[in-house]
């Protein structure tokens, strides 16, 4: 686990995929981050990696209210698999489903890795990957 940056009210930490459930549980139980505001992925074809980022916030602790903790992890592009955080933060359920179809990251343990926003007959590569090009641009 390493801290990527500390800005006012924003902290970003990066962990290995194997540790993420443990770290998230620690953040929830000991630090008071009780929900995820957003969860999304970023594709980095240069590093051949996909970064998954969870923005965690706190409703319970008033001193943490303005803070957002970004918990990130990276996985390879070819076999993008990550453990799900749905058992730690219930609120990531739809965000992870969206990430699955937009970036092709399979969340192990997530009850529903299936279509959410895209049409049922979508048969292309996941659209938010960088090698998916919009036509005409």
């Amino acid at each position, binding site marked *: 686990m390493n801290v990527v940056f500390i800005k006012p009210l*924003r902290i970003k930490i990066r962990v290995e995929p194997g540790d993420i459930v443990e770290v998230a549980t620690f953040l929830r139980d000991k630090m008071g981050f009780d929900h995820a505001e957003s969860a999304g992925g970023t*594709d980095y074809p240069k590093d051949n990696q996909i970064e998954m980022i969870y923005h965690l916030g706190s409703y319970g602790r008033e001193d943490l209210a303005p803070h957002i903790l*970004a918990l990130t992890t990276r996985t390879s592009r070819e076999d993008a698999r990550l453990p799900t955080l749905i058992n730690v933060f219930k609120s990531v359920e739809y965000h992870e489903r969206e990430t699955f179809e937009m970036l092709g990251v399979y969340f192990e343990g997530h009850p529903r890795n299936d279509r959410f926003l895209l049409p049922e007959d979508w048969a292309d590569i996941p659209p938010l990957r960088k090698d998916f090009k919009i036509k005409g641009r």
Partner: protein
Amino acid sequence: MSSLEDKFEESKKLGLQIVKESEDDRLMTLSVGPQHPGSGHFRFTIKVDGDYIVYCDPDPGYVHRGEEKMCEYRNVIQNIPHLERPVIHDSNNITYSYSLAIEELVGIEVPRRGQFIRAIASELNRQVYTLYWLAIYGIFLGHSTMFMWPMGDRELFIDLLEALTGARVTHAFNIPGGVRNDMPEGFRDRCIRQIRYFEKRMKEYEDIFYNNPLFRQRTEQVGVLSKEDAAKLGVTGSVLRASGIPYDIRKAEPYDVYNELDFKVQYMKTGDCFARSYVPLLDMRESCHIIEQLLDKIPQSGEVRAKLQPNPKGPPGEAYRRVESGRGALGYYIVSDGTPRPYRVKISVGSFRNLLALPYLLVGQRLADMPAVYWSLNYWPVEADR
């Protein structure tokens, strides 16, 4: 393990005798949307046993347009007109946090007068959105007068915004570096006059709608979302505040001029449909006070827009900024790689987060409560799909 799972089990128990596979033919599957008058651009499948809903599966995506991908192909200024499309009724707020994030990345400071005008436009737009939402809530419960009045009063604010920004709904007004233009002459008096009028109107809303015994009967103790569940599901905005958590980004993480203003975070403790429908009204009332304060404190003259080259770009980095929109926290996570175009834009919208509460609240309710619960979640289908 927790109250949320307990509640889900409990509500399942209500229909537990029915959910058994062998008796599945008792259930009737209803597809609510996308052509159902009570859904919007959205579909959710429900199964009913008699009058009780025993299963609910939301299926958004009918108006998905790939805003996040589109952002990667345009430079930061060109992104403004299409980013406001998901919520054209709240377009100043959805571009507000985008501008904040870009300003953080590029490293520019908005002039003080610009900050005030931004806040005024954002508050006016919150009224427009909330009135639209309230109108739909009225017609969902069969109250046609409550559909017409907020729609009519909304015109007042649209006229104000038209005078300020030049467009009626899609304003394209907030841009990185400030706002597009200064306030026109006489705007202040007009604004105060209309807000005074609107404050009187809100009393009428209470008389005819909120204090109506039939409305109370339909919404009180219906679809209760407890405080713990609200925090766990990560809902936001009025849904969260109705459940007893006084969390408002304007107070929690004040952006621009909001830390100089004197206002309260309105919340209720019951967490039922009534609270969820009443908190927006309280918000509108508070918003009127905020607009008056902003008009009082605004500097008499000054720049409204920082000088910026046509293709602003900053050092590589990332930013996550959020504002309180009509539907709750609206955050932008923007990654920049040093080019004029954003590398990745992730929009975290309130509607998408509140959608998670829908299956939990609907299961165990009556079919007649479906529109009341659904629309009380402050859900805007187009915004959730992005």
